[in-house]
């Protein structure tokens, strides 16, 4: 087996494992009164895992696969601290720092790569107060993209839908809540649960979402149908519910 093919086979699983642990931490950290018992059963069980992410997924802190998986998840590695206001685990901060430093965006990086890296850096600065704000990537595309494309792009960057992490992407999302709602419905109709969950998280953060969308029920539907096969769906749905519970 080649080096590259070996990496390709283990990284998606590592991402899923970390996402499941983060979702579990979110599920166990606050009021779960609105959680439906069925789809939540698996994450709640795993919520008993506490401590650093590395220990939870049984990897060493300097494992390259763990660092790469943390880079893929971006700011969501620190989502429990950012969403629940709990102190971040120092080992998780070290993991996020290693992921940020190991995979800087290149000059030809896509908007998703550049923004996810910026989001990870911003999350670290928000929690630690260390470092200076980096130059934010270009967000001009958010004004010109047709709504299906905008919705898909923002769903890929749902890890930036965090309170306390202001960005030009969040500003763009605030300006187009109806377009995001359209994207959510489109994703559900396409059975694209990952996109629907990411958009649901943005919709939980921004004001002006049409009440007729029925976001809480939509999130439950997405979690029910997509959460079992994709831990990142569960993570985004749990983050969205946390945002909705914290909304005034």
């Amino acid at each position, binding site marked *: 087996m080649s080096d*590259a093919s*070996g990496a390709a086979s283990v*990284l*998606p699983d590592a991402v899923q494992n970390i996402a499941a642990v983060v979702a579990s931490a979110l599920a166990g950290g606050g009021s779960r009164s609105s959680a439906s018992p069925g789809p939540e059963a698996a994450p709640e069980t795993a919520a008993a895992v506490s401590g650093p992410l590395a220990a939870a997924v049984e990897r060493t802190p300097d494992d390259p696969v763990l*660092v790469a998986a943390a880079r*893929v998840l971006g700011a969501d590695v620190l989502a429990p601290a950012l969403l629940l206001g709990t102190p971040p685990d120092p080992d998780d901060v070290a993991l996020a720092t290693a992921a940020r430093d190991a995979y800087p965006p290149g000059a030809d990086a896509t908007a998703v790569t550049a923004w*996810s890296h910026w989001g990870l850096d911003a999350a670290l600065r928000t929690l630690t107060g260390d470092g200076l704000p980096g130059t934010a990537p270009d967000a001009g595309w958010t004004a010109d993209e047709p709504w299906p494309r905008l919705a898909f792009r923002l769903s890929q960057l749902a890890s930036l839908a965090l309170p306390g992490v202001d960005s030009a992407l969040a500003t763009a999302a605030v300006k187009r809540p109806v377009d995001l709602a359209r994207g959510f419905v489109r994703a559900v109709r396409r059975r694209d649960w990952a996109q629907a969950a990411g958009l649901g998280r943005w919709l939980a953060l921004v004001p002006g979402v049409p009440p007729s969308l029925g976001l809480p029920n939509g999130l439950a539907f997405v979690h029910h149908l997509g959460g079992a096969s994709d831990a990142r769906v569960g993570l985004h749905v749990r983050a969205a519910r946390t945002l909705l519970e914290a909304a005034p």
Partner: protein
Amino acid sequence: MLPLNEPTTAPVTREALTPDVDALLNSAEAEGVYRDSRECGGLLLLAGLLLLAPPEPKPKKG
């Protein structure tokens, strides 16, 4: 003769993981999976016609 304890797989490195990180970050939009209501309706109509069809006449004796 090869040593028996030679590892069969190379350790995973950051360089090897970089393309996979980029691929996971920039995954393409999933193909939509729709339920075609016209197709479902056609199948339902066909099943209904089969159920409602009169039985074949039995051959007459004699």
